[in-house]
C-alpha cells in the first residue's frame, strides 16, 4: 500500500512569552492510501495541533511530514497553500461555507485557486454535489439548506479537487443525530470508493465508524488499533 501520511518524530512547541508549551511530543505514524482513520482525544490532548499539521495549516517545530511522498514540513506559507489546494479536502465542524454564494459556487472555490477555467469548474462542482446527493440544490445558498445538507456541500467542496486526503475536523459536532448518521454514511461511502479519510473527533461513537483509531493524549499517540469496522 502506498503511504499518504508519514509522520516521523513530529513535535510542536508553542511559545507565549517565556512559557513554552509542547503540544506534540514526538508523533510517529503512517496512514496508507484508502484508509479511514479516526484521531480521538479529549480537548487539550494535542488533537487540534495534529490536525493543523496534517492539514498543512501549520509547520511542525521538529520532525518530518511526508504527504503523498512530498516533504511538507519545511515549506513556506505559499507552498503550503498550494499543497492544501492540491492534496487535501477539508470538512470543518462549522461547515465554513460562504453565505453569499450558492452551493455550487462554494464547491468550486478550491478550483478557483487551482486555476481551473470557469466552465470546467461549474461542471466539476455540479458533479461533486451530485455525488453527495445534492444535485437539486446547486443554486441554493447555505442559508436555504439544513445543517446536514450544508455539511454535504462542504464534503462536496472537499471532494471536488480529487485530493489525496480528506481531513474532517469534528464534522458532526454541530449536527443532530439524524444528520450525523447522514454525514457519517457519506464518509463511509467515500471510503468505500477508495478515498483516504482522516476524521478528528472526541466522540468514540463517531470514531467507531472508522477502520482504525488513533488515540492521542498529552501530545503523544497512546493507542493505535483497528476497530473491526468493515473496510
Amino acid at each position, binding site marked *: 500500500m502506498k503511504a499518504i501520511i508519514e509522520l516521523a518524530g513530529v513535535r510542536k512547541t508553542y511559545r507565549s512569552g517565556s512559557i513554552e508549551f509542547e503540544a506534540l511530543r514526538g508523533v510517529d505514524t503512517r496512514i496508507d492510501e484508502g484508509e479511514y482513520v479516526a484521531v480521538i482525544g479529549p480537548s487539550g490532548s494535542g488533537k487540534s495541533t495534529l490536525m*493543523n499539521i496534517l*492539514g498543512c*495549516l*501549520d509547520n511542525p517545530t521538529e520532525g518530518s511530514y511526508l504527504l503523498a511522498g512530498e516533504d511538507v514540513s519545511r515549506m513556506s*506559507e*505559499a507552498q503550503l*497553500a*498550494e499543497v*492544501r*489546494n*492540491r492534496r487535501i479536502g*477539508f470538512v*470543518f465542524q*462549522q461547515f*465554513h461555507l*460562504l453565505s*453569499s*454564494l450558492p452551493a455550487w459556487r462554494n464547491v468550486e*472555490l*478550491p478550483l*478557483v*485557486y*487551482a*486555476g481551473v477555467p470557469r466552465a470546467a469548474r461549474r461542471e466539476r462542482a455540479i458533479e461533486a454535489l451530485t455525488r453527495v446527493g445534492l444535485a437539486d440544490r446547486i443554486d441554493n445558498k447555505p442559508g436555504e439548506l439544513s445543517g446536514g445538507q450544508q455539511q454535504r456541500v462542504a464534503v462536496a*467542496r472537499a471532494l471536488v479537487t480529487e485530493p489525496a486526503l480528506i481531513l474532517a475536523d469534528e464534522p458532526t459536532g454541530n449536527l443532530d443525530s439524524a444528520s450525523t448518521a447522514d454525514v457519517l454514511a457519506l464518509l463511509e461511502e467515500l471510503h468505500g470508493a477508495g478515498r483516504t479519510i482522516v476524521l478528528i473527533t472526541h466522540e468514540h461513537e463517531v470514531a467507531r465508524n472508522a477502520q482504525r483509531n488513533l488515540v492521542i493524549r498529552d501530545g503523544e499517540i497512546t493507542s493505535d488499533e483497528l476497530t473491526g469496522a468493515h473496510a
Partner: protein
Amino acid sequence: MNWFETVRAGIEAIRAHRLRSALTMLGIVIGISSVILTVGLGQGAQDQVKQQISALGSNLLIVSPGSSTDATGMRRGFGSASTLTLNDATAIADGSVVPDAKSVAPTTSTSTALTAGQTNWTTSVVGTTTNWLGVRTRQVSDGRFFTADEVTQAADVVVLGSDTATQLFSFGSPVGQTVSVDGTPMTVIGVLAPSGSSSSGTSEDDQAVMPISTAMRLSGSTTGSVSTIYVEAMSANTLSAAYQEINALLLNTHGVSADAADFNIATQDSLVATANSTNKTLTVLLGGIAAISLLVGGIGVMNIMLVSVTERIREIGLRKALGATPSVIRRQFLVEASVLGLAGGVIGVAIGYVGATVLPGLINQPVSVSAFATLAAIGTALALGIGFGVYPASRAARLTPIDALRSE
C-alpha cells in the same frame, strides 16, 4: 486565480455589503465631485475673464497715463496723470516710428448725464476717432458710426451702446433722435451691437461714443490729454515689437527715463494674468479643501476595509485553507479597495458633471470641466483606493489560516 476572477470576487464582496460600500464610496464621491466643481469653477472664471479681455479687441495694447503726484506729495494711481495727449496718439500712428502698429484710437472718457425727453441716464461718454470701431472690434447694429469729417468738424453726433439706447429710448429706433449731453443736444446716428461681455463692472454696452473733438469741446479741455490710447498691433507675433516701439517712442518724446515713465502699457495677456491671479488663489484654496475631503474619503476606505478584514476573518481563513496564497488574499482586498475607489471616482465625476450643468444657472458663474480634470479625478480616486487599501490587504494576507478559522 487570475485578475478577472479577482475583480469579479471584489465586486461580489462589495455588492454583498451594499449599504456599507455605498457609505464608503460617499467620501470619495463627495471629494471627487467637489474637486471637479471647484476646478471647474476656477477654470470657468478664468475663461470668462479671458473672454472679457479678448472682447476688448484683438492684438491690443492699452496705453494709459502714469501716476501723478499732487502739490502735497500725494501720489495717485496709474491713469491719474494727464501725460498722454493726442500728439502721442498721432506719433504712435506714424508708420515709420511704430511700424508694428496697425491702428490707433485715442480715447477720452468722462461720466456724464444724458437726457432724452423725460428720461435721463448717466453713462460713460467716450470721445475717440473712427479707428475705435476696428481697434475694439465693435460693430454698429443700427445706423452708422461717425466719419472722419465729423471728427474734424467736431460734429454733435453720438453713437450709443445697446444698453444705453435701451435705457434712453424704450420704444422705437433711437437713430435720428436727439439726446442732450451735458446740456448740448446731439443727434444719435447709430447704436453699437452688444459686445456680449462686461469687464470690471463697467458694461461695454453702456456708453456713448462721440468724436474726440466733440468730447474735448464739451469738457472744455484744451490740453488735448487723453485717458487711454488703444493700439492694435499688426498681429499677435508683432505685439511685443509694437510694445517696445511705443515704449521707446513715448520715453523719447516725453523725455523721461524708463524708471520715471509717466505712462503704462498693458497687453491683453498682462490684463488676463492680473485678473486671474485672484481667481487662482481662490481655486487653489477651494481645491485644497476638496483635496482634504478626498483624503478623508480615502481614510474612510481604509477604515471600512479594516472592518471588512476583521469581519471576514473566517472567510479569509477558509479561502486560505482551500489554497489561497497570501498574495492572492492581498490582491483580493486590494482589488476590493480599488473598485470602491474607482466606483466612487466615477460616481463623483458624474455628480460633478451634473453640478457643472446645474450650477451656472443658480449662481451665474460658468463652470468648465475639462477631460483632463475628469481623468485626473478618476485616477486619483483609484490611487486613493489602492493607497489606502494596502494596509488592510496586507493585514488580511498575514492572517494565519488556523487562527482565522477558529475565530468567533
